[in-house]
């Protein structure tokens, strides 16, 4: 029994080390191993919209106002623009509404603010005045961003105007501001510092790397050896089938964890991500993530006899996991049906747990659900997968 166990461990280790050695000596594989996480971080981190969606958006201003209020609006817009680290708008000044419409039609401008000629006059007569905002409807996201920014700007200006009027009407009020805006909303995070979009992305990318290693890597590695013919040498040796699975999994786990670590280092060093939780817990969660995927990986490698088939099956499995798990987009923004599907994917729980640990600094007690679900997924699939693999390997 113990002799068998020792043999099992020895054989698994030898096979695992062999796989790692083969991998380490394959320059192309090594390059893609390092480039993948860097590429993913850059791509995903920079391309996907962060909190502030407007960056250097070309925006037209048409000030037709004959009074002074129009000028004040333009000034406030300029000030807001200058106040940002990166300007939100690249402003062009136009002379008519028609010109603004044309510019939007040609998509040289994403939106335009038109201040009508009677803007100041209307305000001074006590009527409600309005400005016109035109946006490019072909780009809903930017359009929404422009609308909310300009709305914010205009209501702030309206408040300011009201404060002035109240002060003039009621001379003895100590704080006219309070009379107009009795309360405000103050947003607070639970961890110190300003969070950035990479903090949202990094845990997702780590989970993704591990998922790919455990699922694609394992099946790919077994089917590659089957096609090369080297698998015959391993199977015809007097070793347990279990040691083949363990050895292969070991190599893939090491690769996946190294890649996840690389992602984390990149995130911390290049993108200023701060890990708020404990590194020990993070390591544990990464291992758990591997475990939750490995069973599915083994199963697919058993079922896919050729590398090509393995890849096709993998794609069908990994894509939903990628897009529905919340690794790249928040689950809360998905339609309800998709949110339900998302609940059935191990990846979702891995991402949730990793994100809690990295971004919020949550401890083990705050992620027990995720931990149990991952353990469950891993255990069930591994238990099913091992006999399937054993049977499939000698057909």
């Amino acid at each position, binding site marked *: 029994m113990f002799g068998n166990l020792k043999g099992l461990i020895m054989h698994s280790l030898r096979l695992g080390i062999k796989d790692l050695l083969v991998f380490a000596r394959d320059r192309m594989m090594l390059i893609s191993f390092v480039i993948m996480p860097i590429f993913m971080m850059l791509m995903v981190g920079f391309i996907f919209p962060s909190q502030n969606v407007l960056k250097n958006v070309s925006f037209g201003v048409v000030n037709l106002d004959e009074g002074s209020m129009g000028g004040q609006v333009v000034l406030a817009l300029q000030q807001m623009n200058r106040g940002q680290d990166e300007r939100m708008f690249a402003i062009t000044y136009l002379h008519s509404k028609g010109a603004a419409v044309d510019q939007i039609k040609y998509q040289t401008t994403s939106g335009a603010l038109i201040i009508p000629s009677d803007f100041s006059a209307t305000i001074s007569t006590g009527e409600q005045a309005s400005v016109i905002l035109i946006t490019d409807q072909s780009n809903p996201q930017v359009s929404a961003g422009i609308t909310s920014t300009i709305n914010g700007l205009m209501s702030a200006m309206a408040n300011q105007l009201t404060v002035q009027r109240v002060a003039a009407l009621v001379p003895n009020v100590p704080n006219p501001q309070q009379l107009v805006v009795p309360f405000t909303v103050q947003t607070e995070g639970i961890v110190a510092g300003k969070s950035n979009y990479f903090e949202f992305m990094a845990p997702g990318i780590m989970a993704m790397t591990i998922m790919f290693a455990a699922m694609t890597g394992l099946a790919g590695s077994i089917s590659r050896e089957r096609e090369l013919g080297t698998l015959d*040498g391993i*199977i015809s040796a007097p*070793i347990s089938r279990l040691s083949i699975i363990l050895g292969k999994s070991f190599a893939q786990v090491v690769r996946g964890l190294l890649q996840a670590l690389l992602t984390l280092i990149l995130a911390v060093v290049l993108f200023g991500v701060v890990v708020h939780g404990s590194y020990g817990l993070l390591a544990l969660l990464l291992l758990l993530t591997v475990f939750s995927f490995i069973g599915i990986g083994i199963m697919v490698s058993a079922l896919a006899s050729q590398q090509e088939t393995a890849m096709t099956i993998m794609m069908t499995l990994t894509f939903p996991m990628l897009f529905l798990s919340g690794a790249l987009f928040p689950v809360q923004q998905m339609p309800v049906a998709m949110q339900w599907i998302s609940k059935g994917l191990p990846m979702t729980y891995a991402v949730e747990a990793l994100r809690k640990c990295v971004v919020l600094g949550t401890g083990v007690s705050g992620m027990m659900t995720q931990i149990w679900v991952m353990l469950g997924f891993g255990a069930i699939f591994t238990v099913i997968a091992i006999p399937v693999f054993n049977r499939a390997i000698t057909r």
Partner: protein
Amino acid sequence: MNMIEVEGLTRRFGDFTAVDHISFTVEKGTVFGFLGPNGAGKSTAIRMLCTLLRPTEGSARVVGFDIVKEQGEVRRHIGLVAEKIILYDQLTAEENLSLFGRLNNLPEEQIKQAIDKWLGRLHMEAWRKHRVGTFSTGMKQRINVARALLHHPDVLFLDEPTLGLDPQTTHAIHQFILELRGEGITIVLTTHDMVEAEALCQQIAIIDQAKIVALDTTTNLKRLLSADNTTVIDVEIANLSEPMLSQLKNVESIASVIQSDTYHVRIHTRNTDNIAPILSALNAMGANVRAINTVLPTMEDVFLHVTGREMRDKVAASVPSVRGHRWSRASRVR
């Protein structure tokens, strides 16, 4: 003593039968050859004996162990040189051998000795520390053979061991196989090379369309022809042409005709040693006959005699279309 006993061994892939009720025994210290065209079922038979493939029917014992119930024991006693080379290109010769030594449960010290011994015998010591990926096919095959022998198996399976190798390496491997035979290792090999089968094997099973169609010693197989009163004659015809060949095939006393090169045909007579009717037929068709010899039959003649077909021009009709069955392709492409 029988090292291998096979009884009614059969393997089907879906509705395609790759190996159909084959039975044979192999004595210790002999070389047993499967001779047959591509797709005849040779590799499938070997894969079953090596426990890489489960038989659909029948049974087999290798070194006294059942290939289904005692797979572990079978694996302990066999070495396999499969159609594809079982080595990792990124590892050195030594690393490859050491890995497989460990997988065969050899202690470190013994692995070292075995590597020294086999690399020495195969004249590959100089390449010990080099990566296998940089080797020629012939060099790879030598290391591959060393890998299969590392743990001193009782039975060595060689699936087309010289396929695609240059004549020198082929010769060296043939010599090596004969040496091993002398050392008491039992060898089972597959080949579609008649000369190889004849040179190495004491016993040959001619396998065609999944079945063993003849099984005997090399000498006895050749005697099959004389027992059936078949004479093999080699005729040199200066104006040999395609129509002439088809006319010859229709001559009553001719069983078969093979064109061996531009001017030579090899004719098997049908149940007769009288070649006079053949000569008159040749005369009648205006053949410019330069020489006629009766020749000793080769394995090629035996194959033709028992299967009624030439070996090289056949792509067996029974080989399934690659997408015929879900498993067939994956299991047949090795």
